[in-house]
């Protein structure tokens, strides 16, 4: 085995054996899925509670409109006097009382409907009730003006702009949102990976310095070999972790989808969809559509380019991390050199979240997806929106070129730094080391 291979293996084993690594790798997908699951469970828990709402309809208009559905039970109290109804609602521990008084015009009626409740009522319930009443009253107004309801129904135009690119792939507004979410998540994850693994490289360099083993090692291998072995070995640990996450995440996601979609099927989906669409803007419908959109995303492509840009971005940044680690004696001293790493990463994220989402193929997005320090994040965010292959190629070539330059530069600082003890170097000094 060559020395480089030996170093790579040692670094890989040292990373992978670390307890934090093991815990992070296997636990975090479960933690994330568990948290999402917990949130979903908590909301359904809330919804399972059936809310009884009493209503007094003095107009007699709404006889058929308040249909008990899902978690709301409407109880007709029309024959009860308002004061008695209030008492009854309180003693029966009902959610609230809706009072629709008799008025001359629909407009004054619209102003005078009241809802009595102990606590301020849930926004979505109020919304539901309001939309039921509003549509009824609107229809009432139409009728009063002698307009035929069916005519209006027929005259209504439903607009849903279909988006299609020139090569014939259909997309939709929703799919843009899904792309944004996935691109954003990938970009953010990439930044986290670069910071986490870059830090690992730095810590491992500092460890060798503080353990004073460095001189023993570099009397056997070239410093450049050691630095490269360190960066490569750590990157393999990162790739392994990423694959475990993708596999675990994939399994958990499909289990989750199965459970969620199955659930909706059982509870008479058609009716649910219809009512929900009428009342709450079709959230459930969107969830299903959302899941379908995820399936149409170029997920494999995204995973592939995530790996490419992770390795590229990681190489670029971790060589800087290695140089910093070599220059300082302890991790606390490294703070002063962190700015050149954090700044471009943050810039990449901000450009990603503002420019790319606004206009994925605009000038700002395109330029930042070419600049090597930001390109991994910005390009990854653009990829779900479809980027021409030659743009990706150019950005990767620029990235590789800068990696070679950066590794060379970092190697020079590393070579000197690892043998320097007890001095807290300044930028000026680092610059001088380049010339040794």
């Amino acid at each position: 085995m060559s020395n480089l291979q030996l170093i790579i293996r040692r670094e890989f084993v040292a990373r992978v054996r670390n307890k934090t690594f093991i815990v992070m790798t296997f636990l975090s997908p479960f933690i994330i899925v568990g948290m999402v699951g917990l949130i979903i469970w908590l909301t359904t828990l809330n919804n399972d509670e059936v809310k009884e709402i009493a209503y007094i309809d003095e107009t007699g208009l709404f006889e058929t409109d308040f249909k008990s559905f899902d978690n709301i039970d409407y109880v007709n109290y029309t024959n009860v006097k308002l004061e008695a109804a209030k008492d009854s609602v309180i003693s029966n521990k009902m959610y609230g009382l809706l009072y629709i008084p008799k008025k001359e015009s629909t407009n004054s009626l619209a102003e005078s409907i009241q809802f009595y409740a102990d606590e301020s009522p849930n926004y979505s319930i109020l919304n539901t009730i309001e939309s039921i009443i509003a549509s009824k009253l609107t229809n009432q107004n139409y009728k009063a003006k002698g307009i035929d309801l069916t005519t209006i129904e027929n005259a209504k135009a439903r607009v849903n702009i279909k988006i299609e690119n020139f090569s014939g792939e259909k997309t939709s507004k929703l799919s843009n949102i899904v792309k944004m979410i996935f691109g954003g998540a990938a970009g953010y994850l990439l930044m986290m990976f670069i910071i986490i693994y870059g830090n690992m490289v730095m810590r491992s360099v500092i460890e060798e310095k503080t353990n004073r083993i460095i001189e023993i090692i570099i009397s056997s291998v070239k410093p450049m070999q050691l630095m490269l072995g360190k960066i490569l070995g750590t990157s393999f640990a990162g790739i392994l972790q990423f694959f475990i996450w993708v596999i675990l995440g994939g399994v958990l996601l499909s289990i989750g989808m199965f459970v969620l979609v199955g659930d909706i099927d059982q509870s008479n989906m058609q009716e649910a969809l219809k009512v929900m669409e009428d009342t709450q803007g079709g959230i459930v419908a969107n969830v299903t559509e959302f899941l379908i959109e995820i399936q149409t995303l170029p997920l494999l492509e995204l995973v592939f380019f995530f790996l490419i840009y992770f390795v590229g971005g990681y190489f670029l940044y971790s060589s800087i991390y290695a140089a910093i680690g070599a220059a300082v004696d302890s991790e606390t001293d490294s703070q002063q050199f962190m700015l050149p790493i954090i700044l471009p990463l943050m810039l990449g994220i901000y450009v990603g979240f503002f420019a790319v989402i606004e206009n994925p193929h605009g000038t700002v997005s395109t330029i930042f997806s070419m600049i090597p320090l930001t390109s991994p994040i910005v390009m990854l965010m653009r990829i779900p929106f479809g980027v021409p292959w030659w743009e990706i190629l150019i950005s990767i070539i620029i990235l590789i070129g800068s990696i070679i330059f950066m590794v060379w530069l970092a190697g020079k600082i590393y070579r000197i730094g690892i043998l320097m003890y007890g001095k807290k170097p300044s930028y000026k000094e680092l610059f001088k080391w380049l010339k040794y």
Partner: protein
Amino acid sequence: MTNLLEVQQATKQFGDFIALNKVSIAVPKGSIFGLLGPNGAGKTTLIRIINQITLPDSGNVFLDGSPLQSHHIRDIGYLPEERGLYKSMKVGEQALYLAQLKGLSKKEAKERLRYWFEKFEITDWWDKKIQELSKGMAQKVQFIVTVLHRPKLLIFDEPFSGFDPINATVIKDEILQLRDEGATVIFSTHRMESVEELCDHIALIHKSNKILEGKVSNIKREYKSNTFEVGLLSENKDALQSELADKFCTEPANFKAIDDQLKLKISLDKETSSNDLLRYLSDKATIVRFNEMIPSVNEIFIKTITENE
């Protein structure tokens, strides 16, 4: 005797600071070569150049007759002054790793490690982590790793620091044995008594320059001042003392003796031999001690350094 290592006119500059100024040394095969000098003289820089950790700005290094190349790393075993091991790695694993970096196969490294671990009676350390060992114990592991690949040239920088006297003796004996088996040793230290004991050649580096080099015996011969320490029994000590002071250059000496002696250091000029002195003294008093004063390496060290200040 041929030289295993030759450094010719090596110069190294860090910015404006000259760490090494045209230093040449020749280390004969099979010798124990002491590299001496005060702190910051440039010893470590020279050692690092020999180990190819730093490259000289100018000058050449030859190992076994050929210019230093990267494969020569495997012919050198280096125990640096700043030394340590991975704290969280197991002893055996770590020793194997370091041995493999020096080009040993895993199998070979394992066999040799077993031999050394048995020799030092530390076989039960194999699965321990370094952080569980004391400093002296870790140093033993480091020593093993340094010599495991049987290098032609061994470089020890302050090898005895961190060892208790018993283990220091063990290590010293091992170094001597390695020399007897054919290795050449470069030995950098401040502890002059171990230089005295071990080294047959020395070089002295001061302020980036080499100011002295050679066989220890030759250097001592050069530095001795033809001075003798004598102990004399006489009836009339004071008279004898003043008589001798007139004839020779004398100084009171200080050594332990059981009876009341006249203790003197007598320096002779070049024309007078020790026999002349003996003959002269034997007429005057009973000679109970007659000893040539040979300068210790320590004295030579201090003398040369102060002369070059």
